[in-house]
């Protein structure tokens, strides 16, 4: 870059407020690419070069040394830049977005340094707008909302002053003369305007037509992989989940969870019955996967369909955790996906397999919401389902010997529940530790025979395999237990730490599948109320959830759901009104109707008078000012074109038009007002009464204001 002296082109014209406008543009140019630092859309080096050059530019502008590049410099820069960007697009990043961002940064920078005409400034402003839009579109983090808000405040302030600078191009001295203009936009109007725009943006965002599914690719970029709910669960990796503090689920219950919270918050996600090579797997093919379709209809969770359709509603928001399986409470009996959870309403369907797993057609890539109805007691699962697969022993002599030893005196075939309880009781006495070291091919045997330390998955796997060795069908279940009570409202956050594993044991045709949890109580996550210090994390988690659920993933389905709710609410309100109208207490015939109508009318008139009278309010005014305001009001009512802002001469002129009888007391009132307001003279004793009498005299003498 060069200074005006060195390279100032001969055709550069003097532009009013150039320095001020360049500084304003500079502030926007600094803000515009901020999201690019966090979105990995552009190399850091490019951004640093951009910011460095911009800082240098602004420094010079602040020192009144405004750079204005000449045509030759611009042409040379363009010639050098084009091959670089083409090469980068072709062989380097090979990303159109990246190339566009490069181009925008380059163009913006050079345009700022080569302002020669008024038009160039407008162009630079538009370029910055485009850079801002491009930057925002690369980010999927909720903090982008805060960024947009900050930019809105800064840009609004810049535009307010920009507009004035443009209008004062022919009279720049007016700007320096008027202090009030230089103080624009002012804190109050700025906040009011931006917040009004934001408030207006909310319904617009909700109802702008969505023709395509929400674009959410990249939302999970950079997040660690979670396993545990896929169709193969590696016990060694499962524990990784427990170190994750991300919010996986957000649960809102229709009624307080109360004493049953712990039971309600045991959420079953995936039951696996096949144990192969140290990995839990889904049942073999041929187990039969039933398809239960439905959109907006509850589907029963138990294969028998018992218990479906009753109980308390619980809304669950599930963030994308790389699974197709829906967690639901063990006490749940029916489930319904919200319409908004589907990209295409009407095409929703769910699969429920033999192990009562509820599966989506594909892995969701955004937060989905569904409702579960739950009761106070678990609905018995009496279908054998995958019991055959779940009864297959691993064939470990060590495990079999330990099981037989533990179950001495108990016949597992005859009393499977008793046998399961005995093993559960033994395992619960062992030690819980969250050690994630891989244990090798005989990890379960080592755990049972010697180590006797592990996390929930180790205990659940051991119990399942021990029971299988003695012929009791047992399946391994992953899910969530407990949660964190939300800081605001009646909801529970379920994080990675709440991931848990347990078993379901086939206890005969009468009892069906019964749940057992062999993990020592210290290893069973509970329902926690977090200390105050951690509430902040809940706030950010809440923001992230909100952004993910209601902004990033908001689509056509959500719009349909929203419209349905509005329709329901409207219908409900109308129904309420209808019922109220039909209530026996009000059915008293036309007299009651007339009375209600009269009351409503009176209320409207009262409100109207209050609103109209607000401008003539006299409360808090000194006696003469109050009398003057009343005089103005009286004149206004008589048809004079007066407002509270009318000057005394106008008021007096209006009164004089009513004749000498009215003019005399009016003049006395106006004089008293002027004396009090502008002369700073306090009212004398009896002044108030005198003014009242003058007003009465005026009212008595005044006729109708003559038509103009």
């Amino acid at each position, binding site marked *: 870059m060069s200074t005006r002296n060195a390279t100032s082109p001969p055709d550069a014209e003097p532009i009013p407020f150039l320095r001020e406008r360049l500084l304003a543009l500079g502030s926007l140019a600094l803000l515009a690419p901020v999201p690019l630092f966090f979105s990995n859309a552009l190399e850091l080096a490019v951004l640093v070069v951009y910011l460095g050059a911009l800082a240098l530019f602004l420094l010079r502008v602040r020192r009144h040394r405004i750079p204005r590049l000449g045509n030759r410099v611009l042409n040379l820069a363009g010639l050098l830049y084009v091959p670089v960007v083409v090469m980068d697009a072709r062989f380097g990043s090979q990303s159109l977005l990246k190339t566009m961002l490069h181009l925008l940064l380059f163009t913006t920078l050079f345009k700022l340094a080569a302002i020669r005409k008024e038009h160039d400034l407008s162009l630079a402003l538009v370029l910055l707008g485009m850079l801002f839009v491009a930057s925002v579109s690369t980010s999927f983090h909720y903090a982008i909302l805060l960024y947009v808000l900050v930019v809105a405040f800064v840009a609004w302030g810049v535009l307010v002053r920009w507009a004035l600078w443009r209008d004062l191009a022919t009279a720049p001295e007016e700007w320096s003369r008027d202090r009030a203009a230089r*103080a624009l936009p002012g804190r109050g109007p700025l906040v009011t305007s931006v917040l009004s725009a934001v408030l207006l943006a909310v319904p617009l965002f909700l109802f702008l037509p969505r023709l395509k599914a929400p674009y959410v690719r990249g939302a999970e970029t950079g997040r660690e992989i979670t396993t545990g709910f896929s169709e193969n669960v590696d016990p060694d990796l499962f524990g990784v989940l427990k170190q994750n503090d991300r919010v996986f689920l957000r649960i809102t219950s229709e009624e307080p969870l109360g004493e049953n919270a712990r039971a309600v918050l045991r959420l079953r996600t995936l039951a696996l019955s096949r144990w192969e090579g140290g990995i839990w797997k889904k049942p073999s093919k041929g187990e039969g996967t039933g398809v239960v379709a439905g959109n907006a209809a509850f589907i029963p969770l138990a294969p028998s369909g018992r218990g479906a359709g009753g109980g308390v509603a619980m809304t669950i928001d599930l963030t994308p955790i790389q699974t197709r399986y829906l967690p639901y409470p063990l006490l749940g009996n029916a489930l319904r996906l919200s319409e908004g959870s589907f990209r295409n309403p009407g095409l929703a369907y769910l699969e429920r397999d033999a192990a009562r797993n509820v599966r989506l057609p594909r892995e969701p890539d955004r937060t989905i919401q569904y409702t579960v109805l739950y009761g106070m007691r678990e609905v018995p699962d009496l279908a054998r389902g995958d019991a055959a697969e779940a009864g297959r022993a691993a064939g470990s002599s060590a495990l079999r010997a330990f099981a037989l030893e533990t179950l001495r005196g108990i016949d597992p075939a005859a009393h499977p529940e008793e046998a399961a309880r005995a093993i559960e009781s033994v395992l619960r006495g062992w030690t819980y530790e969250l050690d994630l070291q891989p244990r090798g091919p005989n990890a379960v045997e080592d755990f049972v025979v010697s180590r006797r330390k592990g996390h929930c998955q180790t205990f659940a796997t051991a119990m399942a395999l021990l029971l299988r060795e003695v012929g009791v069908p047992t399946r391994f279940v992953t899910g969530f237990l407990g949660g964190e009570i939300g800081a605001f409202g009646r909801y529970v956050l379920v994080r990675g730490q709440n991931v848990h594993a347990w078993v379901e044991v086939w206890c005969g045709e009468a009892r069906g599948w019964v749940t057992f949890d062999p993990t020592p109580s210290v290893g069973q996550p509970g329902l926690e109320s977090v200390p105050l210090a951690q509430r902040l994390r809940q706030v950010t988690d809440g923001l992230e959830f909100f952004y993910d659920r209601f902004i990033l993933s908001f689509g056509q389905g959500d719009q349909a759901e929203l419209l349905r709710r509005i329709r329901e609410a409207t219908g409900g309100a109308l129904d309420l009104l209808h019922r109220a109208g039909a209530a026996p207490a009000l059915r008293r015939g036309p007299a009651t109707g007339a009375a209600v109508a009269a009351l409503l009318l009176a209320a409207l008139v009262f409100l109207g008078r209050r609103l109209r009278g607000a401008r003539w309010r006299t409360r808090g005014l000194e006696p003469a000012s109050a009398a003057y305001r009343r005089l103005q009001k009286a004149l206004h009512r008589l048809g004079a074109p007066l407002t509270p*802002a009318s000057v005394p001469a106008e008021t007096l002129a209006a009164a004089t038009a009513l004749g000498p009888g009215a003019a005399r007391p009016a003049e006395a009132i106006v004089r008293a007002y002027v004396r009090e307001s502008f002369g700073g003279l306090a009212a004398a004793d009896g002044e108030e009464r005198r003014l009242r009498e003058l007003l009465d005299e005026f009212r008595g003498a005044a006729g109708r204001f003559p038509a103009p």
Partner: protein
Amino acid sequence: MTFGARLQKLLHPGILVRVTNIGLGFILLTLVVAVAATNTGNNGLYVLVSLFLGALVVSGVVSRRNVENVAVALDGPAEIFAGVPVRFTLRLTNLGRLPRRALLVKISSAAAPILFGRIDPGRTAERGVDLVFPKRGRRSIESLLLYSGYPIGLFRKGRVHPLEDERLVYPAPTRVPYVPPDPREAEGGDPRDRRQGRGAEIRNLREAGFGDDPRDVHWPQTARQGKFIVKERASEEGRDALVALDTLRPRAADAEWDKAFERSVSEAAGLALRLLARGSRVGLVLGGALVRPGSGPAHRRGLLRALALVEPAREPGPAPLAIPGSVAVYRAGPWPEKAA
């Protein structure tokens, strides 16, 4: 009134709206982002589109309210001379309930705008404005344009405020450096015959007394006699002077004649004012019309008014009525050597 006109009036009652370049750019950017949002389904872009549209609405509403309920008044002096800057006072009163910001007023399309940064509700702000009326005659400022790009300059909204303020612009008086003396004096009139006054001629010399104006001291005589001698001036009051202006426009007259006529009107004004200042009773002969000699402020205004409105005559008018008594006639204008 057609339905469309009624609707237009309802939507924009007297408000002039213009989309600025920035506004156009903003609208185009909004459209581009809207297309991109619809095409990609990127809700980040939907957030921006919504915010842009929200800003458009807020900007539209605020800009309209900002120019509504503002009373405009322009007050100026009674005496205005063509080509001479006159100080007017422009008053804006905010009749609304919210402050008005960044209001601009244009008195004529070519003039620079006058800025009112902020006017609080019920308050009046005023600014002095120097106006120049280039031509004499009846001139009116029919309207003022009040406009503003506030808040963010996407729209420039304004309102034309009718003033119906017609003013009489007097001809610019040409400075007359030398007024020819009364022709009778040239013939040998004695100033001592006249009574004492503030005229230019010296009537008598006498010794200074209490209350004499120091400016009247006659220094050469004072030096000579060794005591203060003051001049007694002769009064010119009561002597009538007529300024005559030939208004007949020859058939072959061109634009140059018109210019010369305007110069003559200015010269006549200058002469008349100079004579009035000298204490004479001054009258005007404008073609066939006569303004009888007189003096005083009202007469001065009358003379200027007549000169402000005088127009070239196509036909010769009747001879002016005779003025009784002694009258000195001063002819204004450089013609007839060129125009006649």
